[in-house]
């Protein structure tokens, strides 16, 4: 049965998605640049989740596309290796090149860098592959991943795409590169099945409503694992491993995990049926975990108490109205008090 299902591709951003990176202040930026691989910290649960995804029989590729400069390739590759993460593709931003060529706008540009990078990476993926994308709320990742899906689905003419990218502040080099790639990867369907947005800045989840139900803002990777369990990608044991990494390495309490679980239920990202399925399967996966019965009892209580209304199936989504999204405000979320 598994063989007949489409292969899966995972696209990951690095900073604030996989790695706990601070670069809101110049001091943080300098520290990040000089950190050694073993000093870099991954976001709680991210390593366990990526290990599970990388080992999945349907996984065709795990690609990283990051805005970090090329000069960090060695240290970042080493970090991923230390964490036991499968890496099939690793794209970093040519910031030095942009600087030397005077393309200052390109240094800050996200849309004009990531979108063509995703399209290029798509060329290496099986044509029928489904994609799961991971980003964060510090940049315009939800917008870029949704746009990428629509571009691959052939929903734009070159002029339409140029217009959207221009309005999104993309640098002209990036726009031209994207338009050139337009015909090379176009299929008749959108390959992006899920977009997970790690809420590093805790931005309001309603900010992502316009992107549709397949965009799931997550507070942590336990939530991503639960959704992937619901999607039939992970099994309960994988989810438990993600939770255990968060408990053991990052001091997560059962209450924080239970709150995360309940938050997903409330937002309709998972349904009560899934919760019951998880509970049934997790009992077996957790039989050797101390205190597991208490954990499951707490989860059971939350399922009963949460007033849930599942969001509609993401496959029914219409193409996005990018004009309306761009009209509604800046793509990047600014923390209160920052400019």
């Amino acid at each position, binding site marked *: 049965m598994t063989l007949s299902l489409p292969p899966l591709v995972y696209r990951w951003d690095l900073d604030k998605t996989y790695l706990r990176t601070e670069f809101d202040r110049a001091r943080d930026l300098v520290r990040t640049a000089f950190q050694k691989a073993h000093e870099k910290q991954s976001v709680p649960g991210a390593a366990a989740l990526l290990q599970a995804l990388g080992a999945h029989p349907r996984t065709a590729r795990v690609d990283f596309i990051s805005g970090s400069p090329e000069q960090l390739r060695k240290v970042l590759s080493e970090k991923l290796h230390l964490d036991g993460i499968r890496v099939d593709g690793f794209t970093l931003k040519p910031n030095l090149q942009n600087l030397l060529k005077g393309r200052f706008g390109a240094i800050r540009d996200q849309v004009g860098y990531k979108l063509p990078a995703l399209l290029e990476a798509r060329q290496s993926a099986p044509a029928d592959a489904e994609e799961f994308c991971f980003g964060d709320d510090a940049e315009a990742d939800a917008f870029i991943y949704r746009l990428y899906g629509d571009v691959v689905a052939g929903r734009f003419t070159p002029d339409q795409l140029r217009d959207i990218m221009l309005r999104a502040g993309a640098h002209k080099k990036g726009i031209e590169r994207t338009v050139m790639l337009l015909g090379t990867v176009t299929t008749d369907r959108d390959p992006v099945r899920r977009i997970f947005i790690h809420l590093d*800045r*805790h*931005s*309001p*989840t*309603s900010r992502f*409503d316009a992107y549709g139900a397949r965009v799931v803002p997550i*507070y*942590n990777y336990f939530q991503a694992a639960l959704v992937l369990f619901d999607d039939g990608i992970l099994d309960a044991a994988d989810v438990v491993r993600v939770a255990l990494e968060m408990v053991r390495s990052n001091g*997560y309490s059962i*209450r*924080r995990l239970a*709150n*995360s679980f*309940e*938050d997903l239920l*409330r*937002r309709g990202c998972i349904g009560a049926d899934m919760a019951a399925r998880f509970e049934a399967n997790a009992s077996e996966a957790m039989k050797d975990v101390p205190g597991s019965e208490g954990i499951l009892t707490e989860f059971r209580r939350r399922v009963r*108490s*949460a*007033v849930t209304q599942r969001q509609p199936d993401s496959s029914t989504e219409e193409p996005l109205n990018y004009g309306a999204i761009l009209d509604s405000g800046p793509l990047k979320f600014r923390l*209160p008090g920052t400019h």
Partner: protein
Amino acid sequence: MVTVALDAMGGDKAPVAQVAGAAQISLDPQGAHVILVGDERRIAAELTKVRHDAERITIEHTPNFVPMDASPRHALDATPDASVAVCARLVHEGRAQAMVSAGNTGAVILACARHWERLEGVRRCALAAVIPTERRRGERQDPFSLMLDVGATLDASPEDLMAFAVMGSAYAARISRNPAPRVALLSNGTEANKGREEIVQAHQWLKVHPSLNFIGNVEGVDLPRGTADVIVTDGFTGNIVLKMLEGISETVLELGRYAYRQKFAWRAGMMLLSSGIKQLRELTDWQEYGGAPILGFDGVCIKAHGRSEERAMANATRVAAKAVRTNLVGAIKEGLARAREIKQPVQHPVVVEPALGGDA
């Protein structure tokens, strides 16, 4: 981390201000875990609009709440699962260590009385309020003194006044970090024999209490001066004093507005003073202080102002968490035990119903 049950449905701006306040606390590394109690759908809808950390917020669903203008007893009898009662129950069950509500004051006190035990030596609980003063106090140069009772009960016996003094002193020491708060009785003269019989008796006991910094009686004129850090009085007097101070403050502001409108020279003068007035307003901003504690129970309850907005709700929650972290209830118990050594109180009937229903 301290867990605070927050009544999401109590207050003029509920649940918007309550949810936003809890959201703010959830992002504070030194904050608290918050259980938002109320209508889950409404709370969840508000949460999606604000920055928050969902890992540190739980929702306890209940469809009922006590309206601001309802009779506390009737409302709680009719809806024992009203949000304010559920908050008190959560503390009683140990699922939360403190509660915060901006709802109907009488209902908050009654909910505490119905779910919590009164501390030994406390016959009546007290509602404490902060009043802005000229003098600063404590480590943080706090410009507020604490007055209690301001409306939980009408009258007070000497034993009640002594218990209020102990509770107010413990609160000021823990929350304002004032190691030896000056405690005074509100009377019509500073002499020890001035005032009603219960004040004179309380004065005698308070002056020999070993752990209180009792400075004697103060008069009304001493309140804004800040002569005392903790002012002890009965709920009837305290409520009148508090409302009068609020009225004076509003009148002064209105006079300022009047002067601004009337003459150009006055307007120019006001403009020159504007930064000072702004600073003064910030300094004495009740929203910064958060709320008033209800003291005398074996739990922590902060009653926020009915008009509280996000900042006031967040600050009330911070105060509640701080009261738990600094073991306020333990300190009160200790002070009460010492008070019992001074004088075995006369046995009065136990009073649990709030006397004043207004929003103190």
